[in-house]
């Protein structure tokens, strides 16, 4: 089951990437009907007709259907075989989330409301984290014995959650930028229109809109687009600073063998690369492939941060109250040399 959960999570990760390609190519409305595709049953739509933006939007729908199927199987599997009640219900929650996500995507097309796309993107990332969490708790990494050597101070755990929250906020801000259809509201980096913070007065906005020649004819840039873009940049700086602080803190305060040190360092490397792709997205004038990698790295960062947070929090719980009484603890009965190792580590 664990492998199946991992497979479902990986499929969802690709699905988010395909969603990124849809918005990067401004193809969200390329298939005007839903759940049909140009009047066809979605699964029978002829491949010869997968042209232009249809290719991205239709592929996104097909992969979404596949992820829906995987999630349904996973939920049933958990319900039938899992002895942890909360995990069985987590499977149900994943199923409900994927159904809601499908409906949100469909309503985005049918009602033609851009803002629904932002919720669609936000829920996609929450859903990915949920699947990754299920994959984690069905793995051996969740067994109490695996937490030998973990000792994460509460303040460090809090810092991980702050980093997770900031990364998620960044993803929502990024999704908001994508669904404004305003293209790059600020086309240069590290400066913004040659300044630290650009002007947003009417004269300046009229000037930049007049001079902007873009074949995809995005919406005219408004002050709110520039503020949103700049907030995303500031958010990136803040999130990166917190992740740097986290890596530094774990090196200082966590014992050398604890995996959280490696995870924090891995998260830092990931976030530095992510920041680089953010800059590259601007320099490439939002090239679809670069922007999509930026989306995927963001999703990966969210998963990495949140699972590190979960593992760290669990280590603290196990350390405090003992594995047999801890929430989310599975009685795996791990014994080495006849001794309950989980108990010995508490």
């Amino acid at each position: 089951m664990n492998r199946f959960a991992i497979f479902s999570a990986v499929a969802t990760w690709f699905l988010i990437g395909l969603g990124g390609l849809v918005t990067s190519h401004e193809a969200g409305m390329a298939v005007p009907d839903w759940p049909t595709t140009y009047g066809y049953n979605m699964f029978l739509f002829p491949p010869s007709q997968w042209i232009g933006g249809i290719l991205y939007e239709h592929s996104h729908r097909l992969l979404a259907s596949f992820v829906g199927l995987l999630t349904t199987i996973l939920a049933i599997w958990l319900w039938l075989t899992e002895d942890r009640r909360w995990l069985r219900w987590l499977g149900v929650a994943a199923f409900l989330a994927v159904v809601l996500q499908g409906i949100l995507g469909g309503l985005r097309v049918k009602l033609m409301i851009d803002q629904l796309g932002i919720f669609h993107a936000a829920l996609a990332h929450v859903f990915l984290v949920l699947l990754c969490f299920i994959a984690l708790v069905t793995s051996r990494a969740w067994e109490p014995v695996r937490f030998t050597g973990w000792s994460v101070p509460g303040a460090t755990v809090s810092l991980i959650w702050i980093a997770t929250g900031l990364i998620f906020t960044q993803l929502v801000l990024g999704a908001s930028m994508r669904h404004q259809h305003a293209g790059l509201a600020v086309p240069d980096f590290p400066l913004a229109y040659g300044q630290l913070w650009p002007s947003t007065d009417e004269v300046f906005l009229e000037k930049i809109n007049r001079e902007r020649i873009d074949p995809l004819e995005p919406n005219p840039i408004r002050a709110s687009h520039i503020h949103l873009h700049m907030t995303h940049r500031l958010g990136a700086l803040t999130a990166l600073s917190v992740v740097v602080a986290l890596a530094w803190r774990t090196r200082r305060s966590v014992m050398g063998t604890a995996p959280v040190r490696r995870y924090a360092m891995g998260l830092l490397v990931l976030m530095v690369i992510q920041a680089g792709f953010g800059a590259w997205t601007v320099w490439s004038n939002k090239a679809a492939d670069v922007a999509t990698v930026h989306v995927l790295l963001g999703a990966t960062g969210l998963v990495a941060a949140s699972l590190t947070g979960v593992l760290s929090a669990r280590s603290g719980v196990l350390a405090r109250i003992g594995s047999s009484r801890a929430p989310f603890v599975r009685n795996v009965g791990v014994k080495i040399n006849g001794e309950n190792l989980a108990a010995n580590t508490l």
Partner: protein
Amino acid sequence: MRKTILLALSAVAIASVSTNYAGDITGKISLKGSAPAEKDLPIANDPFCGKLFAGKPVTTTRFYLADSSGGLADTFVFIKSGLEGKTIPAATGAVHVDQKGCEYLPYVFGLQTGQTLNVKNSDPLMHNVHVTPGAKSGNKESNKAQMAGSKDYEYTFEHPEVFLRFKCDVHPWMFAYAGVVDHPYFAVSAEDGSFKIANVPPGEYVVEAVHRKTHPRGTGITQTVKVGADGAKADFTIEVPAN
């Protein structure tokens, strides 16, 4: 009763005399300053649309189409005010827009509220016609697939809007813009920048010229003209300030 009939006949007579003396508002839109360079449309990158353009010159964006004399095309010119109290003729005939070579033709056009807009797909591939009005315009957004060889679509719009955008999401470089007003006194400047608003009743009017790129908020430049039996002249200069 006789009085009423006489009055009605007089009104009809006055109206017909007014129409008889209707004149044209003519003029030229000139571009002053140096416009940013146009960019190639990514048509060649599309395996299907690219075939339609094989061996032909690359099509570019059409933001500032100016000829050697500075005449600026695709500027929407219309009577902004002065028609109050006048009889406005109902919309007649249809305006035609075609999707040909993976482009909307024409790119900018005018339309009267209630007038039929006929949208055709002459391409051997599918498009979607996505009407994206402004949020406060009162016109309705719609998005319909149009397969190759399928029947034309007809639209009417009830509210004035300059500009009402049409786009194809299958081919994201395809756009068309309609200037929708509640009377028939409008024109779109030709390649040499010239325009003619025909059959305008005598009177004093404020005429507005809106260029889609120079006036992204839909509010252009205006001038007042007095239309007599021999019409009126109204030249506009649209300026692109130096950087």
